[in-house]
């Protein structure tokens, strides 16, 4: 197996970060030739940003958002609405670099000299989802944190202006959480996958036996 040249550089990034953060860096994943994934503790969120920016040269802030890993309690789009929903495994799996909580914060920073991206994740507690704001480190995080706050209900301490950005001010709930119902779909159920037409000219214009 030929070693991919970017591999050791990315390993070194994780080692560097672990050297600075110690046990606060909980998990990591290096994808050869691709992004680096690290997971830090929520208490070390701002510290991780500071180190990445000031010590390790990750000067470009790409985005900040969150993930709700809860499987949708409302089924899937391809489900037949006339049938009872199929049995599904509804355990929560947190993807790259693991995790414990349902909600995870996710930010990506890039080094403009090395062209390596680092995805930083952190678990946020369900009861009090709140971390320190990244604005003092990356000023561009301002609007990203506002959006994450209104869409996922994650608080950012030290953020100067956590008003809603897209939603009306009096809106209640956090729409991008999986248990927030999509009202349009609740009012009128999706007819299911009936809008996929057979290819024209195939000869079998009738609904076939599947194959």
């Amino acid at each position, binding site marked *: 197996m030929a070693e991919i040249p970017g591999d050791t550089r990315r390993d070194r990034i994780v080692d560097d970060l672990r050297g600075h953060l110690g046990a606060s860096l909980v998990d990591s994943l290096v994808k050869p030739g691709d992004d680096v994934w690290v997971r830090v503790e929520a208490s070390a969120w701002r510290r991780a940003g500071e180190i990445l920016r000031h010590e390790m040269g990750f000067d470009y802030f790409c985005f900040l958002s969150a993930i709700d890993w809860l499987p*949708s309690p*409302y089924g*899937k*789009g*391809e489900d037949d609405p006339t049938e009872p929903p199929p049995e599904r495994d509804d355990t929560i799996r947190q993807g790259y670099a693991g995790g414990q909580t349902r909600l995870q914060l996710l930010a990506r920073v890039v080094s403009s000299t090395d062209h390596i991206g680092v995805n930083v994740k952190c678990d946020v507690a369900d009861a009090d989802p709140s971390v320190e704001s990244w604005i003092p480190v990356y000023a561009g995080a301002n609007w990203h944190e506002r959006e994450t706050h209104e*869409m996922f209900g994650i608080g950012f301490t030290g953020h100067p202006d956590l008003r*809603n*950005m*897209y*939603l009306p001010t009096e809106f209640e709930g956090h*729409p*991008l959480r*999986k248990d*927030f119902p*999509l009202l349009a*779909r609740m009012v009128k159920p*999706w007819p299911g*996958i009936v*809008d*996929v037409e057979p290819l024209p000219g195939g000869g079998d214009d009738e609904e076939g036996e599947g194959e």
Partner: protein
Amino acid sequence: MTSTESLLDRRQMAYIAAQASDARVNVELETEGMTLNIGPQHPATHGTLRIIARLDGEQVVWAEPSCGYMHRGYEKLTEVRTYPQVTALINRIDWLGSFANEVPFILAAEKLMGIEAPPRAQWIRTILFELSRIANVSSRRCSWRSAIVSTSSTSSKARPVVASTRTSTASVD
């Protein structure tokens, strides 16, 4: 006495008059400061964007963009759709670069499913990318022009006296 002298005089007079009129314009521009609400519907914006601008004469001293007037929350809509259905949403994010948004989504979906598109499909994507880039650049050129014209015409509504001479040249352009 001589014609040259009177010419100089006349020039000087004209200069003084110009200075005086400039001064008058400057005095007119020194306003109390006003708050101007631009949008959400405005011909200069492609889509809807509201900007609350505080003006001091011609200068914008403070502005706050207020967005979300066209926010549909397509992340939420994708939760209940299949991948082929989502492509129809993705290409509406930016109607000038629809294909440029669609392909990254398709690539991500293919990566998740472990699929690699056949070479012919990849070539077709490249061609469509280039065509969409050309369409995007040329339509943006046109829209800049219309945006310039429409902004200048609205500013003349805000300050009819001072700006009328300038906007007339801008809108002829």
